[in-house]
């Protein structure tokens, strides 16, 4: 039955969260926090259970492409279903989302004004993200994708800082512009994806099974879908929403957006663009390798010259998310596995960064690194956390970043031709550039001399802030030390995609 499927509960619980919040009084912080903490803990528990059960089922020899598959008819005339199912990648993405929603709740413990409305939109955003990761029907996937985008407008516009109106509008319009392209691509896949005589379908697995889209259409649709998702993945010419948006967003929203929402782009790229249009992926990958290559290097260089902490991180996100798309476009199992590891690693790391920046900003009321220094003396806990996040970002062994980037570059180097080699080598330079901007900030901000006498009286992290950061750091180190079970889970899930690619050459 409908509610018998665990996956449905990943959408039902956020909806219950919305309903619960709607019943709370506008400024009744106790009730609002109660609802948020309860539901986000439940979601976290469900995700952990899901991952464990997934691993157990795989270990027991269940080799199905997707687990917990189910499908309910929604719009009969157009054969639209609410179809759910998860493989190893979606399971991990759900876990990532839960961790960040959980940490984000604590990071926005003291949100002001209109706390109820803030959490309402925040919950709607997470509903969209969860729904996206459990769907295997293009229509529902697209619907949840847009559900996740629009709350950003109000979240940034009302609760943001700085040039929030401009940034909110820019972000919304650019992302929605991307989804307009995406939608045309999906329509094309729908109408061309089934052989003559079969009913048209939105189901991703069925379409890939038919493999019916002719090559001319594939090339066209690939561009539309990849660009559509690429906008959210901050691909080079379409990345400009990201720095402004992240810089102006409130802490929890930056965390959720950089941590999870940008992953929707990468996830969509391989789940729809590459999986369903494999021939075009083989043929046109080079165009996007160039663009994402530029993202990686350009993002890293831009981060070097920023003075606002949030801008540094936003540009570093452009670089790291560029790496995700870059690795996906290498179209082999190793690099793609690295891409997913990078998604997880970057999601946690960026969330940690933005949480810390929010906490520092809440105390010093500035994000300009020229006006701060010596935080290690003032707030040692936050300082240490910031350094840990920085090391994860520059790929120190033992942290998640190292595992992800190593896998990506190993995988990418499997391509022996000149074109790939050049771009891979160019991309590896970003590791060095990342070290430059991270160490610059750490040296100045954390270890340098105290810049402002007033800062000496500031306090260190509170319990809810510690809870938020410890959760994220534990996960970062977890990936760093035990990457094996993760990469095995991921690798297995890439098999159908790599098979489809090999068939279409």
């Amino acid at each position: 039955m409908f509610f018998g499927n665990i996956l449905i509960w990943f959408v039902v619980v956020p909806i219950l969260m919305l309903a619960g919040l709607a019943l709370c009084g506008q400024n009744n912080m106790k009730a609002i926090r109660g609802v948020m903490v309860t539901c986000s803990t439940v979601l976290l528990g469900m995700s952990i259970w899901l991952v464990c059960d997934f691993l157990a089922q795989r270990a027991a020899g269940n080799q199905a492409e997707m687990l917990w598959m189910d499908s309910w008819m929604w719009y009969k005339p157009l054969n639209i279903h609410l179809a759910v199912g998860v493989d190893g990648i979606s399971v991990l993405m759900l876990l990532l989302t839960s961790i960040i929603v959980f940490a984000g709740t604590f990071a926005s413990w003291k949100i002001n004004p209109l706390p109820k409305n803030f959490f309402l939109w925040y919950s709607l955003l997470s509903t969209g993200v969860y729904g996206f990761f459990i769907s295997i029907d293009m229509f529902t996937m697209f619907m949840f994708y847009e559900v996740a985008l629009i709350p950003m407008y109000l979240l940034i516009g009302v609760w943001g800082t700085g040039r929030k109106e401009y940034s909110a509008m820019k972000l919304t319009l650019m992302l929605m512009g991307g989804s307009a392209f995406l939608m045309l691509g999906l329509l094309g896949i729908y109408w061309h994806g089934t052989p003559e005589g079969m009913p048209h379908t939105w189901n991703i697995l069925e379409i890939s099974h038919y493999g019916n889209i002719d090559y001319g259409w594939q090339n066209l649709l690939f561009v539309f879908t990849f660009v559509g998702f690429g906008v959210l993945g901050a691909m080079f010419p379409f990345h400009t929403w990201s720095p402004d948006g992240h810089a102006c967003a409130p802490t929890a929203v930056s965390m959720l957006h950089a941590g999870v929402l940008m992953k929707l782009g990468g996830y969509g790229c391989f789940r729809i663009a590459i999986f369903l249009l494999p021939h075009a992926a083989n043929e046109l990958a080079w165009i996007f390798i160039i663009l994402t290559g530029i993202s990686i290097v350009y993002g890293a260089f831009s981060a070097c010259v920023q003075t606002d902490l949030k801008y540094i991180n936003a540009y570093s996100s452009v670089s790291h998310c560029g790496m995700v798309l870059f690795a996906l476009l290498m179209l082999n199992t190793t690099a793609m596995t690295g891409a997913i590891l990078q998604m997880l690693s970057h999601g946690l790391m960026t969330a940690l960064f933005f949480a810390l920046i929010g906490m520092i900003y809440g105390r010093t009321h500035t994000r300009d690194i020229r006006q701060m220094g010596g935080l290690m003396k003032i707030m040692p806990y936050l300082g240490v956390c910031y350094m840990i996040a920085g090391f994860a970002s520059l790929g120190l062994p033992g942290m998640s970043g190292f595992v992800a980037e190593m896998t990506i570059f190993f995988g990418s180097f499997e391509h022996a031709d000149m074109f790939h080699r050049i771009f891979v080598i160019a991309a590896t330079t970003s590791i060095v550039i990342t070290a430059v901007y991270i160490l610059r900030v750490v040296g100045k901000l954390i270890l340098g001399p105290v810049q402002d006498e007033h800062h000496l009286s500031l306090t260190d992290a509170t319990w809810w802030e510690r809870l938020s950061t410890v959760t994220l750091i534990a996960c970062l180190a977890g990936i760093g030390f035990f990457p094996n079970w993760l990469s095995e889970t991921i690798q297995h899930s890439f098999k159908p995609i790599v098979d489809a690619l090999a068939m279409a050459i």
Partner: protein
Amino acid sequence: MGYSQFGAMIPELIILGIFLVVFVADVFSRDGSAKKFLTPMTTVLFGLGTIAIWLLPSCEVSVFGGMYVNDTASMAIKAILNIGVFIVLLQSAHWVESDEVAIRKGEFYELLLVTLFGMYLMISARHFLLFVIGLEAASLPLAALVAFNKKHYESDEAAIKYILTAVFSSAILLMGLSFVYAFSGGSLYYSDIYTNIASGQMSGLLIVAMAFMIAGIGFKLSLVPFHLWTADVYQGAPTAITSYLSVISKGATAFAFFIIFVQAFGQIYPDCWEWMLYAVIIATITVGNLFAIRQKNLKRFMAFSSISQAGYIMLGAMTSSTIGLGSMMYYIFVYIVSNLGAFAVITSIENKTGKVGMDDYDGLHKTNPWLSFAMTLAMFSLAGIPPFAGFFSKFLIFTSATSTGSMPLYILVLIALINTIISLYYYLLVVKAIWINPGEAKVEAFKSNTGERAALWICVAGIVLFGLVPYIYEYCYNAALIPGLGQ
């Protein structure tokens, strides 16, 4: 011919019955005090009539030698429009009691019902004579309604503009019809025209005739370039009439357009109609959107937004198939609840404070959180944001438009999609005014009237449920399974 044939026109008879009751009640209660019951009576009667139309068994009826046909699709669109009119009646219940209008409220309801009757005839007509009668019955009383605030200069100006353009467009339409008559072998039945004008028989005159017909009907739908009356009339007319014009009259005309398009000129469709409509749709969506961006008066804003929405509605006509018609009817239904939801908020605020500027909505959420919430939902729905109904109607109409798989239609949908982004921008401007713009609220806290609140609740329920619940679309799709349409 027996009078029993009239019995087949049940929806029209219901409207006519209500009209007569209102008329008699109005005539026999000329002293002011006794007219108190007029508004509740009309609303309740109309509500009952709406329920009756929804519950009527849908069967194919064809009377007067096929001039009048009531098939499933016509029944469905009438039922849909009826709900819209019911919401308009609820919305205007308070306004018609205001001092200036109260004395004439009988006329208000009578004129409104007559226009609705005319639209029903347009919808069911399968002969151009009946169509033209319906069109005139629908547009001339509307001019009187537009001028209903007769002491207001703008209202009178709007009425003059409306009547002149309406008459002019009718004249053009009739001119086009007379050309068609020359080709159709002396018959104005849709079916005769369909068989008599074969596709090989293209001539310059026929193309001119088609252009005239598109222009004539385009005026009613305010398609670009025949839209110039729209903004002024919408701004000047009483808000109740603006909302009526923007959804009901548009919905009925769009449906009639589709029927004419397929059932009369279906044979020469690819040669003639398609490209004209193609260009008109692109112009409509784009111009409507671009002009809406600059509007500061919310009624003008809604006027341009409704121009571009008409373009989206007409996308359903680009494929003469069941899915096209079904999606179009669904779009009209969703558009009715979304647009009337926005108008319910505008009406409440205008009635209380007289403010219709977008600046006046700054900080509205501080004083009127529920109205702000409803307006936000309406704007999101109009912009096509899930999980609200507008997203589903847009998605389904785009799906239907691409169903033939031809490249020009994909390009058309791409243009429409890019335009949704532009429209998102200006719909968000309203949201921004309500939630983000700093400063004190300019509208004080108030409780809106029962009628307005009821209208708003219906609209909000529709906005939230019509997409998530698939039955509405299925209803429209099944109703659109009429002969002569491809799948």
